[in-house]
């Protein structure tokens, strides 16, 4: 579906990360964690293509969806200059979200950079389902960590890694994961979730090779159509060959993803 949605709120979290609220009743009532929306940042022919963004959170009471995005180029710069009252043309919810039907008690979530965007929606749903949650969150600089208190108050175990050593562990979130897995060999049934840049997801794939519970990864790829038509966003999946990130994903079983190199 195409929706014309009004921006109800927008503010910056750091000097290049923004949070935007949109009135989108149909999406707010039907979206699942891990799904995304495809935004035409402005009418006209340039920039031409839509931009994909995960649904960061949903506020069903206000029929709103929330996005969290980093200013990365032209499209996101245009978005960052928009104000409440402006409208956006968006398609969605698109793609297959996380599969939360499998039985597990304890979710380990690895989020890197803007991979934190879909993670909050995921956490909201996991809390509703009364799951235990461990969040390993890696960012470049400590200022990119937000909602820390809310997260901890909800009973979530939070470990942070920063590359600039300004908060938590100095280094990568994958260090936190290796350490966590080495200490926590329990009888709990776990399930893993990973969102972030491809190199990080690839690294996580190597680290979790020896653990025997399921991991789901949310992937990114350049997109044109967002609905499986252009065949531009392919990813190689074991046994299944090329799959489309937009339609068959963006969430895939981590072990089945074949990364280049």
């Amino acid at each position, binding site marked *: 579906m195409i929706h014309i949605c009004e921006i109800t709120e927008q503010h910056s979290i750091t000097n290049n990360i923004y949070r935007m609220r949109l009135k989108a009743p149909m999406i707010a009532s039907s979206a699942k964690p891990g799904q995304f929306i495809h935004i035409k940042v402005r009418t006209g*022919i340039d920039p*031409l293509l839509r931009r994909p963004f995960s649904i960061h959170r949903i506020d069903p009471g206000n029929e709103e969806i929330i996005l969290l995005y980093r200013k990365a180029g032209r499209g996101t710069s245009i978005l960052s200059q928009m104000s409440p009252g402006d409208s956006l043309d968006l398609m969605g919810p698109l793609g297959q979200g996380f599969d939360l039907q499998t039985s597990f008690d304890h979710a380990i979530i690895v989020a890197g950079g803007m991979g934190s965007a879909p993670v909050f929606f995921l956490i909201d749903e996991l809390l509703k389902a009364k799951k235990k949650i461990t969040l390993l969150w890696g960012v470049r600089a400590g200022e990119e960590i937000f909602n820390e208190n809310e997260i901890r108050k909800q009973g979530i175990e939070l470990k942070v890694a920063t590359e600039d050593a300004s908060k938590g562990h100095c280094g990568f979130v994958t260090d936190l994961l290796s350490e966590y897995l080495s200490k926590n060999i329990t009888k709990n049934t776990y399930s893993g979730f990973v969102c972030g840049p491809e190199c990080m997801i690839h690294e996580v794939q190597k680290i979790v090779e020896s653990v025997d519970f399921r991991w789901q990864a949310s992937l990114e790829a350049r997109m044109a159509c967002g609905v499986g*038509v*252009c065949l531009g966003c*392919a990813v190689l999946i074991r046994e299944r060959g090329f799959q489309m990130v937009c339609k068959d994903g963006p969430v895939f079983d981590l072990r089945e993803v074949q990364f280049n190199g």
Partner: protein
Amino acid sequence: MVDLSVKIGSLRLKNPVLTASGTFGYGRDYDEYLDIAQLGGIVTKTITLNPREGNPMPRIAETPAGMLNSIGLSNVGADRYLSDKLPALKNVDTVVIANVAGDTIEEYGEIVSRIQDQSRIDGIEINVSCPNVKQGGLAFGTNPDITAEVVRISRLETEKPLIVKLTPNVTDITEIALAAQESGADAVSCMNTLVGMGIDISTRKPLLHHILGGLSGPSIKPVALAKAYQIVQVLDIPVIGIGGIMTWEDAVEFLLAGVTAVQVGTLSFVDPYGSIAIIEGLRLYCQKNGISKVENLIGGMIQS
């Protein structure tokens, strides 16, 4: 009431707007967004005899008012096209054109013969923009003799309307268009993507894995319009205009330049409903300007 119908050879289209190959899947992928029965027709994704996986990533990149692609003719192959894809278009009241390609001249004949007895296929579009594997890898459609041979072999296999989709990456497109006409094509469609490339200067990597790709979208419209116009001047058979059409105004421009119908490609990615909006815009334009038949617009450019 405005009569929007046009004729491409023996094919009657309810209006002159079709969706272009590779930008509309096998016809049903956009059902959530539009009623395909309102379209003049659908050209399905290029199929080859055997399924193809396509090229490594990245396959697409955005450019100013356009995009580059090197999908690599990823497709389900003739068998699945016939068993799964075509039946899904049964009972849809619009024209269906199957687009085909091969690695060799002979393969064009084989694929055409394989699909040509299907009643659901109203016409066949031949994609000659892919590499001629046996003869150096240059696209079939860059050489008039090879184009002629591909068309001749295909013509022997079918009575269905045969449309040859031309590549603009040639010195003189009219020469190729004439070769297609002389070998029995019922129409030509013009044009496929322009060869293009881009480099990310921060990583120094090409934007596409295959370095070169096909440029499409509004940035190519003036080129596409010129090619269509040039071909219209020399051919007797109908021309279908393709390239950068985003609005009904673009479609009117192509009709005025002499094409009989248009195909919209990249537009569907940006606005899946865009093709229908063009049809509505055309109807209104004709109404407002007292044009009772859209056919009367064709070639209506007035030279100053």
